[in-house]
């Protein structure tokens, strides 16, 4: 038995972004002793980077808005593949979650009558995004962080200990979920970045809130944390992932200079009036309005321009189509030779708004371009192109309770959970998702933990295996006896990571083709073998090479899920575009693809590209509830739903 430090908590939340922190406050308020674990410092999670806003149908800017409208927009954005019950709960509860933040000290931008201001965003029928300039994520994370501190101050007043009921373990990484003999969650295995020390937290319920997977792609808006850890943790614990083929490429990332390629340019630039032009100066988006959206978008520049001031009598400009549409259009323009000098297109606000308005409404964008690219966005156009941004796929969960399927005690919320956004997420719907389902996950995890009579007992074999696995990179130096690769020097984890990113970017990127995805699976099989030999220098104390070597396991698992599911889904929908299957197929509307570990008992050595580590399973989605279907016009539904679905 490995001698590692152990602690006991009721609920463990893995991740301190919006979802994790909201789950933690809820669990603690339900009376559960709650531990939060995160890879970075407290307050630095990815959520801090969110810019544009948080979607909630409060109706402050347009009184016609309401949850039904928000629900419709979300389903349309996701091309009706959304787990509809999640979309419903999300639309209904988002306003309460935003208002609640105000009572915890958040300060959103205001309307003239003192309410929370709401801005336009792609795919949202009305101005719906509560925001703070273009630093909304910072406001969200800081407010939740300060709420955690407020709860800790309460505990301090009562017990003299700030951390009696709620503790944040910052700069710690979870590498395995540990279960009991009956297969229930029993705790997590972690290492501390600072010291490299291992520890185990025993807990009856675990909420995974680890965010996304972007670091498997070369061009991405995501930070180093996005190595798909939570996705992998769930898979390894026996829970399936849902619809992993859907990856959102945000249309506007920076393209120059190379070192900042991929960094996000917020959609608010377009929401506030920015336009896209090609090298010929043409607003090309008018040529890319797909049939399903024809009635909803402006036909001429003049109409689009009038919409900003008179939305009742005009339709919105096509720059505000859902992200998948805009990203594909940019890709097509560049491919046709009408791109900007550095391989993007032009995004211009300088000719659309006075300089001081730009600086006030888009301060961080102004700052970002000035500092990083020497571009003054009040005077010239930005160059932008698609960047890997968000994963719609994720852990398959129960809509109401956020419980992961098949593993009692496991919950998931935030970007790591699947279903809510269907095949494509609307801007602003993530931050609201974090709060709505973060709260639900915290609530149900706490109730589950309280309802268990006895604490599950950790399976010690799993603890030992986790420790051995985590130490492996330090002993990769020597030859591995009996293996074909015997005697080769250890692999550099940084090189492996770069090769993986390149392969995913080139072969399973924004536009996909069958032979390329097959090639990707071969490459992944090769990388899998080499990753087993990833070796590191130095010691366990704050060693980034070691951390990366461990993250590779997760990135390889998640990448394989994406590639395999993408190969299987022979249609184009939302964040999954097949050049060889360019149409949306109504028969695929009611199909979910689930990824499971091929060999849940064995190791991860499988090198056969055909079989690999992941097994796919196709399932029928649950039919959409009739009263929700009734919110749409029949003419619209026929574009998405099959005959059988419409008939019922």
């Amino acid at each position, binding site marked *: 038995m490995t001698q590692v430090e152990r602690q006991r908590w009721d609920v463990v939340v893995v991740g301190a972004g919006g979802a994790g922190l909201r789950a933690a406050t809820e669990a603690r308020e339900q009376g559960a002793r709650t531990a939060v674990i995160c890879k970075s410092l407290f307050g630095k999670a990815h959520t*801090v*980077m969110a810019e544009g806003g948080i979607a909630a149908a409060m109706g402050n800017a347009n009184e016609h808005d309401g949850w039904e409208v928000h629900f419709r927009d979300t389903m349309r954005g996701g091309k009706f593949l959304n787990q509809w019950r999640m979309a419903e709960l999300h639309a209904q509860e988002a306003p309460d979650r935003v208002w609640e933040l105000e*009572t915890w000290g958040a300060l959103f931008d205001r309307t003239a009558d003192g309410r929370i201001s709401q801005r336009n965003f792609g795919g949202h029928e009305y101005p719906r995004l509560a925001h703070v300039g273009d630093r909304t994520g910072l406001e969200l994370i800081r407010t939740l962080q300060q709420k955690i501190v407020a709860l800790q101050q309460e505990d301090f007043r009562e017990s003299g200990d700030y951390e009696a009921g709620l503790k944040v373990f910052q700069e710690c990484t979870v590498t395995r979920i540990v279960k009991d003999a009956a297969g229930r969650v029993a705790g997590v295995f972690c290492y501390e970045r600072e010291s490299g020390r291992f520890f185990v937290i025993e807990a009856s319920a675990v909420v995974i809130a680890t965010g996304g997977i972007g670091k498997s792609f070369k061009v991405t808006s995501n930070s180093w944390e996005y190595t798909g850890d939570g996705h992998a943790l769930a898979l390894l614990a026996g829970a399936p992932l849902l619809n992993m083929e859907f990856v959102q490429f945000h249309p506007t990332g920076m393209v120059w*200079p190379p070192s900042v390629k991929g960094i996000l340019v917020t959609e608010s630039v377009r929401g506030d009036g920015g336009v896209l032009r090609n090298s010929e100066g043409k607003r090309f988006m008018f040529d890319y309005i797909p049939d399903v959206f024809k009635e909803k978008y402006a036909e001429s520049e003049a109409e689009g321009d009038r919409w900003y001031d008179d939305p009742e009598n005009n339709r919105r400009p096509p720059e505000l189509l859902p992200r998948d549409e805009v990203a594909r259009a940019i890709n097509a323009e560049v491919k046709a030779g009408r791109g900007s000098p550095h391989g993007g297109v032009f995004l211009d606000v300088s000719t659309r708004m006075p300089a001081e308005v730009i600086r006030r409404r888009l301060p961080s964008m102004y700052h970002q371009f000035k500092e990083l690219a020497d571009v003054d966005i009040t005077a010239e156009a930005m160059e932008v192109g698609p960047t890997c941004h968000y994963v719609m796929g994720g852990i398959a969960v129960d809509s109401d309770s956020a419980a992961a399927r098949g593993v009692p005690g496991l919950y998931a919320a935030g970007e790591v959970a699947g279903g809510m956004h269907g095949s494509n997420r609307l801007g602003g719907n993530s931050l609201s998702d974090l709060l709505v389902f973060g709260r639900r996950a915290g609530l149900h995890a706490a109730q589950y933990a309280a309802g268990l009579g006895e604490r599950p007992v950790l399976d010690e074999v799993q603890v030992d295996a986790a420790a051995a696995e985590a130490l492996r990179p330090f002993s990769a130096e020597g030859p591995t006896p009996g293996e074909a690769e015997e005697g080769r020097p250890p692999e550099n984890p940084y090189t492996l990571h770069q090769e993986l990113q390149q392969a995913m970017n080139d072969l399973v990127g924004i536009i996909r083709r069958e032979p390329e995805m097959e090639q990707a699976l071969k490459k992944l099989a090769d990388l899998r073998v080499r990753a087993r030999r990833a070796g*590191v220098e130095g010691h366990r*104390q704050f060693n980034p090479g*070691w951390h990366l070597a461990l993250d590779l396991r997760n990135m390889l698992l998640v990448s394989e899920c994406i590639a395999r599911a993408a190969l299987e889904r022979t249609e184009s929908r939302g964040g999954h575009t097949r050049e060889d299957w360019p149409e949306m197929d109504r028969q695929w509307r009611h199909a979910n693809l689930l990824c499971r570990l091929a060999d849940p008992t064995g190791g991860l050595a499988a090198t056969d590209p055909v079989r690999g580590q992941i097994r796919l399973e196709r399932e029928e989605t649950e039919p959409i509830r009739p009263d929700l279907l009734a919110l749409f016009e029949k003419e619209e539904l026929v574009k998405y739903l099959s005959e059988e679905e419409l008939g019922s």
Partner: protein
Amino acid sequence: MSSYEAGFRVWRGDIEGGGLEDFKVEVNDGEVVLDIIHRLQATQAPDLAVRWNCKAGKCGSCSAEINGRPRLLCMTRMSVFSREETITVTPLRAFPVIRDLVTDVGFNYTKAREVPAFVPPRELGPGEYRMTQADVDRSQEFRKCIECFLCQDTCHVVRDHEENKAAFAGPRFLMRIAELDMHPLDAAEAEGLDRGTTAQDEHGLGYCNITKCCTEVCPEGIRITDNALIPLKERAADRKYDPLVWLGNTIRRRGR
């Protein structure tokens, strides 16, 4: 695209001690110091410890000192240095080092906990808050803070005076008190908490002699001294008896 080889001098070591290590490393157009540190990791020093997240100046993780000046590694462009210059990167000086460029910033989290939280007004429920933009502008400026702790690192009250740390919250958290004090709906006073006075009595506002060094290093351009600390001092003490406030106001007026 032009690239060149730059001389870098990076502090390596841990609590036990350490020193500057020299590197020669490739630099390309448009890169920032953090890119170079990453290149060192990928090619020459895989275990070089550094904190970073967003690489876009939004998270405040990558704080360090470049040529002795507290800065964000991800927002310092290589083009601000000459090609001949050797660039020295060291960890934040005011905090204990953990390893290489990573320091123990726990001091800041301790101080954050000592500032009493926002007090919601009893009479208003969720959704009933009404505030004008003009009323929230002041506090919003302070909420732009990305908690990079560069101001905490540079402030002379603690930079070379470990002994002051217990009594002094530092500019970031004095500013947090100002933020709550200026929040239009904070009900602290109704609950018997005078934030201005506690800033002085419990969080060490008196140590600040408005040198404005904090304002100078803030990557968010927050006017910490002028907009937060001086008004807080005004609230805390009767202005007539605080010569520093008088001095600060005079400087402020001349600066305009």
